[in-house]
């Protein structure tokens, strides 16, 4: 991952700040130095970077923006540039360039699992984290610590995972473990084995079962045989005992048979026949008696009934009589009522005739009118009212139309117009006026002129103001535009040069100052040393020695006392000085050193003064150059200060800009004025054409009002003319309608006269009027039905008279046949006749019934007589056979015969039973054998046999049970699959166990091998990181320390630094600066280790070299530059000299300057 750009959109004191790191350059170190003074926001920048990666963490930087905090940036991930924005929000705080939320993993995936703290402690360093993280490393904590002492970062968690794998293996088997799956499997196997053994039968066991069954069977069979023999003997004894009572019974039956032997054998059926004969005899006698009595009774009844022949003869006509009688009675009631109704009908007819004035009419039916005639008359009557109304309406409308036309004509005249149509010229003038008015109104309403004027005034004001800022220069915009101004690059160049020179002057002046101070201090030091020790400097010593040598030379040439004394004195001084120098060798050396340093400072001071002088003159040169350039522009500008020229040029650009803006605004204003003038002129001429005098100069409002008035007047006249034309047109139409209605009325009158003339209505002198005809039609509506009703009544009265007479005739005829006297009232006579005929009918029915019953009884008697004769014959047959007197005697004989047959049967049965009981064929032999037997002996024998049998039977049952069990045991083996099923289960468990065992071995062997590999891996990697760190530390310390070593102290390893001079130092014992250098060395090597296995992440450090001297800082930058070839390295500092060192060590390093609270600018 690489940071391309960091946006501090709203973060801390930043609003819209941004640092652009640019693209990585192939083959060059990606080292960035961010320089800025205190408070420029370096620390904020680092915090913002971490917040972008991990989310906005604290509210420390929220003082300005509170909840709207936002950082953003462009990250290069996997060769692609990704825009991200981070806002302050509990979730979904990471957005992409389009403000869409993206998951944090988009960034996190690139960080190789490093969390914020890890990043801060490893690769985002400030004094604090450098030290804290360094301690962590030394105490083998944190990712790098583990890397150094235990494993590479990538494998740190692997030990845990191996532990888990081992634990998984342990679930299958563990030494001395009880609850393992292996133990469970073994248990299952044992259970299944036991289960199988329980239900299964093996071959050997089967053979045993078979043998047991055979033996039990043999024993059982033998016992059954013995029991059978005993049973036979027992049965024999029991038979004989049972036969003894049978013999006694046989003999008793024989004795009973003796007296019955002489009876003859009658047919067996007689026993049943005899009781029936006796019963039939009694029944026949009773029935014959009842029959005779009944015959006598019937003969008496027939004799008592005589028949009425005359009445029976006329019975056939009684129905006709009854019908006529009913009609006679009805006529008697209806005739008087019908006569009354007839009189009423005549009166009604007469009333109608009188109403229409035709009471004397001979042919009444003629007066009833035909339906078609009535219809025609009624239709004409209906039309009449419509025709009359329409005619009246038409006359009224005609009158109204005439009045309206007169009114419209009057108004037109009053308005000063005439009915003639307006001229074409007048219309064209009006149209032109309307057009001109519309245009003028548009122009007025658009307000173009007003707004153009406003814009022009504003632009003009802006131009004037900016022009004023160019003082002391004044002139026109055109002259300003024509000026040959120096190029931007030139101005920038002057500026840069001035800045450089200013810096140089600052530096050299500072140096001169420092050196002067140093020189004074050194001089004072030398003086102090000389004074305190009496030692003189080499120069003073040289002076003494020269004085001595000089004195000697003078003494040699003169060899006198004064020279000798002078020489002696010089010699003494010299000796004293030599002696002092010898006795204060230390102070002397110090004095010498002070002198040397003083000389060196003097030289440096001199050089610095020279350089300062050079810079000053260069500055004067450039200032002069700028002044000259300004003077070339305009003489008045020659006075302008060097630094202000750039500002003046900027203001010139502003003036030119305002001038350029003014020009189009001015053009627009002119156009708007022109347009307005044209519209006013056009409207004025249109008004003139329309007959209204108006001046184009009058102004829009006046012109528009005049136009409105002219247009309104013309419109009003037009409307009135239209109304007169419309009135004339309407009058013509009304007249046509009135004529049509008059014609319709004449046609109706003709039709009416024709209709009346077609019937008796026309017989009057004049055609009757419409109302008269309507009254006649209403009156004669009832005449037709009344005439028809009266004729019907007459017909019904005549019919009734005929029925009454027919009835009287029939009654008279029938009375004659019965010999009855005739009477006046045929109804009473008829009743008598009917009664007589009914009586005769009843007598005849009763007599016929009695004759039928008599015939039935006589035939019954004949049948009974026959039966009695047959019965007498049967009775005789039985009494004759036995020579008996009566049927009762016969019955006694038959009973005796039955007893004999019964005894014979019993005898045969008893003999048969004896044979069966003894099991013999011959009964005689059996009787003889039984006679010889002794009952008591037999009983004893039977009891003995019985006991033996029961004993043997019990044994049999026991043996059978044993046999059955043996057979069942054998049978129980069965062919079922239970054993095989269990075996299959057992096999499956075994397979599971084997599978588990293999899995266990894979896990165990696999983890054992991996552990070995892991140990080897750690060894290799620790040494590589340590080597790296050693080298880095040696580099930073400029060889003061030869290397780092991991040494084992008690339980843990610690890191010690080995100085080149020998010995060893733990980190705690190093000076702060050196310790920080050690920490940085560890980070550098850690970073190298990190990027070996993962994509690089930016390495950021915030002024961690405060405690480094320049030389070590230089070495540190060398290491950072090297790192920057592996990944992006960003170093923030407020020390300009560190920027210089970095630039020197790594010329391709990019330096970015931050200014307090100002948007950072890149690459100044």
């Amino acid at each position: 991952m690489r940071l391309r750009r960091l946006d501090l959109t709203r973060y801390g004191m930043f609003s819209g700040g941004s640092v652009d790191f640019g693209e990585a350059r192939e083959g060059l170190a990606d080292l960035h130095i961010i320089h800025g003074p205190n408070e420029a926001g370096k620390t904020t920048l680092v915090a913002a970077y971490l917040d972008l990666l991990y989310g906005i963490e604290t509210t420390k930087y929220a003082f300005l923006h509170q909840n709207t905090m936002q950082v953003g940036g462009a990250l290069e991930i996997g060769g692609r540039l990704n825009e991200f924005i981070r806002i302050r929000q509990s979730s979904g705080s990471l957005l992409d360039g389009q403000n869409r939320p993206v998951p944090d993993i988009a960034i996190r995936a690139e960080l190789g699992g490093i969390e914020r703290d890890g990043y801060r402690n490893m690769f985002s360093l400030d004094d604090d984290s450098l030290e804290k993280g360094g301690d962590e490393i030394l105490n083998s904590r944190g990712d790098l610590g583990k890397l150094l002492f235990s494993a590479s970062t990538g494998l740190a968690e692997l030990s845990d995972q191996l532990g888990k794998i081992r634990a998984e293996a342990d679930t299958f088997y563990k030494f001395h473990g009880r609850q393992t799956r292996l133990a469970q499997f073994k248990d299952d196997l044992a259970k299944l084995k036991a289960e199988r053994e329980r239900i299964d039968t093996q071959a050997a066991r089967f053979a045993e079962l078979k043998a047991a069954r055979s033996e039990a069977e043999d024993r059982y069979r033998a016992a059954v045989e013995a029991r059978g023999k005993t049973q036979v003997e027992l049965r024999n004894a029991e038979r004989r005992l049972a036969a003894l009572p049978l013999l006694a019974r046989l003999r008793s039956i024989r004795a009973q048979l003796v007296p019955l032997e002489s009876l003859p054998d009658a047919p067996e059926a007689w026993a049943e026949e005899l009781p029936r004969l006796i019963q039939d005899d009694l029944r026949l006698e009773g029935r014959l008696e009842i029959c005779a009595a009944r015959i006598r009774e019937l003969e008496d009844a027939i004799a008592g009934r005589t028949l009425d022949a005359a009445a029976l003869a006329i019975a056939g006509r009684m129905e006709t009589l009854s019908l006529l009688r009913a009609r006679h009675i009805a006529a008697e009631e209806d005739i008087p009522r019908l006569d009354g109704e007839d009189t009423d009908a005549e009166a009604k007819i007469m009333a109608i005739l009188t109403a229409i004035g035709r009471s004397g009419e001979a042919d009444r039916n003629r007066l009833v009118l035909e339906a078609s005639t009535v219809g025609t008359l009624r239709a004409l009557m209906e039309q009449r009212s419509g025709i009359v109304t329409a005619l009246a309406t038409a006359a009224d409308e005609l009158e109204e139309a005439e009045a309206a036309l007169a009114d419209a004509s009057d108004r037109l005249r009053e308005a000063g117009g005439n009915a003639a149509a307006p001229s074409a010229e007048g219309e064209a003038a009006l149209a032109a006026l309307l057009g001109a008015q519309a245009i003028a109104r548009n122009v007025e309403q658009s307000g173009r002129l007003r707004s153009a004027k406003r814009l022009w005034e504003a632009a003009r004001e802006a131009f004037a103001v900016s022009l004023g800022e160019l003082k002391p220069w004044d002139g026109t915009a055109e002259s300003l535009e024509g000026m040959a101004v120096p190029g931007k690059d030139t101005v920038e160049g002057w500026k840069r040069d001035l800045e450089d020179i200013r810096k140089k002057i600052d530096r050299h002046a500072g140096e001169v100052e420092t050196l002067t101070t140093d020189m004074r201090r050194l001089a004072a030091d030398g003086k102090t040393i000389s004074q305190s020790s009496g030692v003189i400097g080499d120069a003073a010593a040289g002076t003494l020695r020269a004085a001595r040598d000089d004195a000697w030379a003078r003494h040699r040439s003169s060899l006198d006392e004064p020279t000798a004394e002078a020489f002696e004195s010089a010699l003494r001084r010299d000796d004293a000085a030599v002696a002092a120098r010898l006795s204060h060798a230390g102070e002397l050396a110090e004095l010498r050193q002070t002198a040397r340093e003083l000389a060196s400072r003097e030289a440096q001071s001199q050089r610095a003064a020279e350089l300062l002088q050079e810079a000053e003159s260069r500055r004067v040169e450039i200032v002069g150059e700028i002044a000259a350039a300004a003077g070339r522009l305009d003489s008045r500008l020659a006075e302008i200060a060097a630094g202000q020229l750039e500002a003046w040029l900027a203001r010139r650009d502003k003036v030119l800009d305002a001038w350029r803006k003014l020009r189009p605004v001015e053009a627009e204003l002119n156009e708007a004025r022109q347009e307005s003038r044209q519209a006013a002129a056009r409207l004025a001429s249109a008004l003139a054409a329309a007959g209204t005098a108006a001046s184009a100069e009058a102004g829009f409002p006046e012109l528009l009002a005049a136009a409105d008035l002219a247009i309104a007047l013309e419109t009003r006249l037009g409307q009135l003319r239209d109304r007169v034309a419309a009135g004339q047109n309407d009058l013509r139409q009304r007249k046509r309608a009135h004529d049509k209605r008059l014609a319709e009325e004449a046609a109706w009158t003709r039709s009416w006269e024709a209709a009346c003339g077609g019937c008796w209505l026309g017989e009057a002198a004049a055609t009757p009027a419409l109302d008269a005809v309507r009254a006649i039609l209403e009156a004669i509506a009832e005449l037709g039905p009344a005439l028809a009703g009266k004729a019907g009544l007459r017909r019904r009265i005549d019919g009734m008279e005929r029925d009454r007479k027919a009835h009287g005739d029939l009654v008279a005829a029938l009375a004659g046949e019965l010999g009855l006297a005739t009477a006046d009232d045929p109804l009473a006579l008829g009743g008598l006749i009917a009664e007589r005929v009914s009586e005769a009918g009843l007598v005849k029915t009763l007599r016929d019934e009695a004759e039928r019953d008599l015939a039935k009884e006589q035939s019954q008697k004949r049948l009974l007589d026959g039966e009695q004769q047959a019965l007498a014959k049967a009775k005789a047959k039985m009494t004759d056979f036995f020579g008996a007197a009566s049927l009762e005697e016969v019955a006694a004989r038959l009973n005796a015969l039955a007893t004999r047959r019964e005894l014979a049967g019993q005898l045969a049965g008893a003999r048969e039973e004896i044979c069966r009981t003894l099991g013999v064929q011959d009964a005689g032999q059996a009787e003889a054998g039984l006679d010889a037997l002794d009952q008591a002996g037999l009983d004893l024998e039977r009891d003995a046999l019985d006991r033996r049998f029961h004993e043997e039977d019990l044994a049999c049952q026991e043996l059978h049970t044993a046999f059955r069990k043996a057979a069942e045991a054998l049978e129980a083996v069965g062919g079922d699959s239970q054993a095989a099923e269990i075996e299959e289960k057992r096999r499956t468990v075994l397979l599971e166990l084997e599978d588990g065992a293999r899995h266990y071995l894979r896990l165990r062997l696999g983890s054992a091998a991996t552990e070995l590999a892991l140990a080897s891996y750690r060894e290799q990697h620790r040494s590589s990181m340590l080597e790296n760190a050693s080298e880095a530390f040696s580099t930073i310390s400029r060889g003061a320390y030869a290397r780092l070593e991991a040494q084992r102290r008690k339980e843990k390893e610690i890191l010690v630094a080995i100085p080149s001079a020998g010995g060893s130092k733990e980190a705690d014992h190093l000076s702060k600066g050196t310790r920080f250098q050690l920490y940085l060395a560890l980070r550098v090597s850690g970073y190298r280790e990190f990027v070996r296995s993962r994509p690089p992440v930016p390495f950021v450090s915030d002024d961690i070299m405060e405690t480094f001297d320049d030389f070590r800082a230089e070495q540190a930058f060398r290491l950072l530059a090297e790192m920057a070839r592996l990944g992006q390295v960003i170093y923030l500092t407020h020390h300009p000299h560190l920027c210089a060192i970095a630039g020197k060590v790594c010329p391709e390093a990019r330096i970015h300057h931050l200014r307090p609270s100002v948007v950072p600018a890149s690459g100044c």
Partner: protein
Amino acid sequence: MEGQIAAYRFVHTADVHLDSPLRSLALRNTELAELIGNATRKAFERTINLCLDEGVDALLLAGDLYDGEQTSMKTARFLAEQLRKLGEAGIATFIVRGNHDAMSKITRELTFPDSVRVFGGRPEAVPAARRSGGFPVVVHGLSFAQPAAPESLVGKFREPESGAVNIGLMHSSVGGSPRHDRYAPCSLAELHDSGFQYWALGHIHKRWEEKGRATVVMPGIPQGRDINEAGPKSVSLVAIGDDGSAEIEERVVSIAQFERVSVNAEGIGDWTALVGEVGQALRRARESAGSDHLVARIEIRGASPLAWKIRRDLDAVKEEAEIWASRVGNCWIEKVETDCRPPPAEGRVSGDPIGELTGLLNEQVLTSPAFKAEADGIIRELQAVLPPEARKLLGDDETSIEAAIALLAEEGAADVVARLQSVRGGGA
């Protein structure tokens, strides 16, 4: 066949291994155990029903009716009961004993119905009863008297009877080396030279047949018992004409069929796609399987970016496969295995700690004496606590045990690396 003399029809099978349990982890599934448990019995019942449905003349059983160590009389009783059904239907049964039967104790105790003819250790030739008349048929048989028969039995058979169709019933490893094979090795030439028309053989569990002067049929095991007896299994329904020509139909009687289902993960980088591939492979395997149930062992092969994940989540693959299997129907998963590797490009990135670790494992650790000593200790400890039946877990002899350990270590290391890979969020 109208107008011709009725052919002699029989069912020929061998190596029934009655009640020999199925050996599959798939039976851990109790539902499946219910469905295909006792498969050897069920297959035998189907064979008997085939005889009855087809109304054949005889059933020929060429040895190894049960496993040698089989001692349950329930098995024998079941066999007798089944053969009794054939006897009642007038179908004869001819049996020779194989090496397993010779070992078996139950053979001696069992009483077969009269319709069954068991050939003894001396050669015999028995005229076959014909239900519908026809040409004479003689069945020759010779049983294993001992569990081993190092010499060919063919020469000991009686001479073929002239004018009859001669059928030889023999348990033999045809083509085996006479010096090393203990199961009556013989050559095909011997069989063709015998003058017999049909050789009903047994012993080899994989089916084959050869028609020459004699028709030689090795029917194979009728019900495979584990993945090593994979593939379709059947019995032979044979009709021999009076001219000795044989028509052979293979009839599937197996309840369950074991199959290795290979899934090529080559280049598959997406888990869903991999699962889909597994499903398709299962569907194809099911479609081509003849038995009621298919018990599949899935083997995922090939170089795939998913290699680590497959290895680590083999359980998940198995679960997915089981879902597919239930969707396919009558299909069951015994086990899922993989030897997938990551594609070469992803195998080892320089500087990648796992890659480096893997390199160390394969190049240094696994072959190092230190590791071998540790492995030895681990294995010894486990073997001491395994039940006796499982002692041969890693093999019978030194060489195979050593190879097994090496393989376990290699696979185990790969498993562990796969998991470590996942810790680092890697491994696809």
